[in-house]
Each structure stands twice: as structure tokens, then as C-alpha cells.
């Protein structure tokens, strides 16, 4: 009873804050009175509905979604494998360090421009998303591996537990908070960097191209509408992926 009251209050507070933000936006747009600078929320909603009916709306979403998700998943797999190797061999950790530091510190725009020379337009956003995801996953998973309960590992050693069972019963459960937090941060970054790559590279048929066109033709409503779509896709994918991770762990604990 108490919990549901708190939950309802939280929902009301969230709705109230969203309504307030929309009101501020609407009033600001009306006061400025120039749709080129800022459009009203109503105009954005109208534009969103008209976008749904355009022939290239869903293909554009599919194009960007597929590539960014591939980049994210590749970063997740490669980052995890690298962390596993670095966790096992200190020398590997030392060898990986310059690459990880470079990827972390070089501005994403520099990578995008460099990759425009190296890669085809079709793989650009995947590769950039991959690059941005890699160090986050690597660092978090490595930290998780290092924090794994030494006493449990010692137990596994005495009982001669094989690697597969060690991963399943010891490492994966202990990595859960690190994995969830890394994925949560990395997914947002994958979307931001992937779309940025598409804008700079003007990838044909992508969401980035739509944003680029909005900039060229000064269609601010398009910019807002597509941005809204990116945010929805990013949050939706994050929620779905984290749900799947939690489902995986629930299944693991029932083994």
C-alpha cells in the first residue's frame, strides 16, 4: 500500500516535471516567435506525424538502428573478450592500455573524419559506435573481473572447477552490476556517436542524413522531430537490452 502510494507520487511528479518542461518550451517558442530558431512542441508533433507517412521514414530508422546496434554489440563482445584476456594476463592489460587511452581521449569527430578516409559509408556509424563502446565495456568489465571474490576463485581452484562453470557461476554473477552500468552508459554513447558519424559522413538513407538535410534547409521542426526519434530509439533499445540482461541473469540463477 505504502509502496504503491510512493510509486504513484513518483509518476505524478515525473508527469508534472515533463508538463512543466513542455510548457517552458511552448512559452519560449511563442515569445521568440521565430520557428527557424525554436519551434513549438505542437509543430514538432505535427511534423512527427507527417514523417510517419513518408516513404523513407522507416528505412532510415532501420538503416541507422541496424548499424548502431551492430557497432554496440561488437563493442560489447570485443570489449568483454579484451577485458577477460587483460584480467588473466597483466601483460595484455599493459599492451591494451595505449589503445584504450587513445580511444577515450581522442575527440569522436577526429575519428569520424579519419574513418571517412578508411571506411565505406555503410560501415562508418557501426565502427564509430564500436569505438566509443569498446573502452567503456573494457574498463568496466576489467574492473569487475579484478573485483571478483578471490575466496570463491580459490574455492573453484581447490574443487578443480572448469573454466565454463567458473564463468557461469562465479564471474558472470559478480560482473552483473558492472555489465549493467557499462551497457547503460555505452548504449547512449553508441547512439550519439553513431548519429554524429552519419551527419558528418552524410550517410545515404540514414537518420544522420535527415539531420544534415535539416541543417542545410533550416527545417528546425525536422531537426527536433528526428532528434526526438533518436532519443526514443536510444531509450527504447536501452530498456529492451537491460531487460534482456536481467532476464538472462534470472535464468542463470535458476540453473
Amino acid at each position: 500500500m505504502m509502496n504503491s502510494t510512493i510509486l504513484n507520487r513518483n509518476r505524478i511528479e515525473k508527469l508534472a516535471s515533463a508538463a512543466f518542461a513542455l510548457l517552458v518550451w511552448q512559452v519560449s517558442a511563442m515569445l521568440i516567435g521565430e520557428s527557424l530558431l525554436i519551434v513549438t512542441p505542437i509543430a514538432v508533433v505535427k511534423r512527427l506525424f507527417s514523417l510517419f507517412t513518408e516513404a523513407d521514414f522507416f528505412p532510415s530508422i532501420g538503416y541507422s538502428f541496424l548499424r548502431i546496434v551492430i557497432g554496440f554489440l561488437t563493442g560489447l563482445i570485443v570489449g568483454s573478450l579484451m577485458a577477460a584476456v587483460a584480467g588473466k594476463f597483466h601483460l595484455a592489460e599493459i599492451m591494451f592500455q595505449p589503445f584504450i587511452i587513445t580511444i577515450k581521449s581522442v575527440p569522436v569527430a577526429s575519428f569520424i573524419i579519419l574513418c571517412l578516409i578508411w571506411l565505406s559509408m555503410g560501415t562508418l556509424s557501426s565502427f564509430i559506435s564500436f569505438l566509443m563502446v569498446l573502452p567503456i565495456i573494457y574498463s568496466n568489465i576489467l574492473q569487475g573481473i579484478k573485483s571478483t571474490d578471490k575466496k570463491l576463485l580459490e574455492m573453484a581452484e581447490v574443487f578443480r572447477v572448469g573454466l565454463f562453470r567458473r564463468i557461469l557461476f562465479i564471474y558472470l554473477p559478480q560482473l552483473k552490476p558492472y555489465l549493467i552500468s557499462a551497457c547503460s552508459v555505452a548504449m547512449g554513447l553508441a547512439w550519439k556517436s553513431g548519429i554524429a558519424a552519419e551527419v558528418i559522413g552524410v550517410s545515404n538513407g540514414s537518420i544522420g542524413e535527415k539531420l544534415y538535410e535539416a541543417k542545410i534547409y533550416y527545417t528546425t521542426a525536422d531537426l527536433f522531430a528526428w532528434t526526438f526519434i533518436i532519443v526514443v530509439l536510444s531509450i527504447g533499445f536501452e530498456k529492451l537490452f537491460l531487460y534482456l540482461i536481467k532476464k538472462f541473469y534470472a535464468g542463470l540463477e535458476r540453473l
Partner: protein
Amino acid sequence: MDIVISGLTKRYGEKTVLENFNAVIPEKKMTFIMGPSGCGKTTLINILMGLIEKDGGTITGVPSLKSTVFQEDRLCEGFNAISNVRLVCENKVKNQDIISHLERIGLENNILKPVIELSGGMRRRVAVVRAVLAKSDIIFMDEPFKGLDEKTKEKTMQYVVDNTKGKTVVIVTHDIDEANTLGGKIIYMNHFKSVS
């Protein structure tokens, strides 16, 4: 083959825990290691298990297939009792066998709960079953009946006796009654010395 410990020495920095320690642990029998706190009982079995290095002396005859009940339970918290035991068992050990062992020491109503939800005594018993069911020639038990009430302790002790026949069992305990009830050789450690 008996385990023969000769001139065993272990130091942690300036502190000497074992010095010139000698003992024989008979094969396929129960041996109790007793002594006051801090006399090096746990250090001794950790050396025998190969978890810590000795500083001097020789040890011969320790079988390579070892199993143990650690001083702490060392269970995988999110998993249930069956999974925790399954982790260390060979594939030929069936889940039904594990369940039957867990039932024998009174865990029948808590088999499917994650061990983090079990009481200290229940967790201890899961650790005992795990040690018993793992393939081994020697079982080390560091205070295996700690935290158990008298009735449960009796049941668990009987379970250990019934299921460790033909294996070398080394039990660290403070309780002479445990040693007398279970029967076996007693090695009394009194700061570096052993009295059998």
C-alpha cells in the same frame, strides 16, 4: 599412503605460525586437528590444500583430488543449494542424488532458494554436502559443524561419517566432543608443537 608432515614452518612476516611442526595423518581415516585459536590450524590445512606456500619442511602423501569445507562457506550467493553442489560435481552425479543428500541433512524445504536467503546453519550444511559430493580422496573440513544446533549437528555428523568412508578426512575443530563422537586420531596443536 599416510600424509607425513616433517619440520613444517610457516611465517607471516615477523610472526611465526608454525615452526618445526611434525605430524602424520593416516590414510582413509578421520583425523582431528585441535588447539587454541591462533595456533595455526587453518594455516596447516591451507598448506595441505596447496593454497599457501610453506616456508620450510616437507609434506608427503597428500592426494591430488581434494575437497573442502572452508572456514567460511564460500558459496555462490545467487544460486540455490543444488547449483552450488552441482558446480563442483562430476557430470555423472545427478540432480536427484544432490537433492537426496541435501534432504538427508534437513534441507528439504530450502533446496530451491538462493543460498543468500538461507540461515548460517543451512549454508554450512550446503558447504558440507558440496565437500562430500565432490570427487576427492581427501576432505579438509575447517569447523564444519560451526553454527549448528545440537540436533542438526548430530545429523550432519552422522551424514559425514556415512558418506566419507574410504576417504581421508581432516577436521579442524575446537570441540573435543565432536572428535570423540566421530572417532579418529586427534592432533593437538599447541603453538608450533603437535601432540597426537
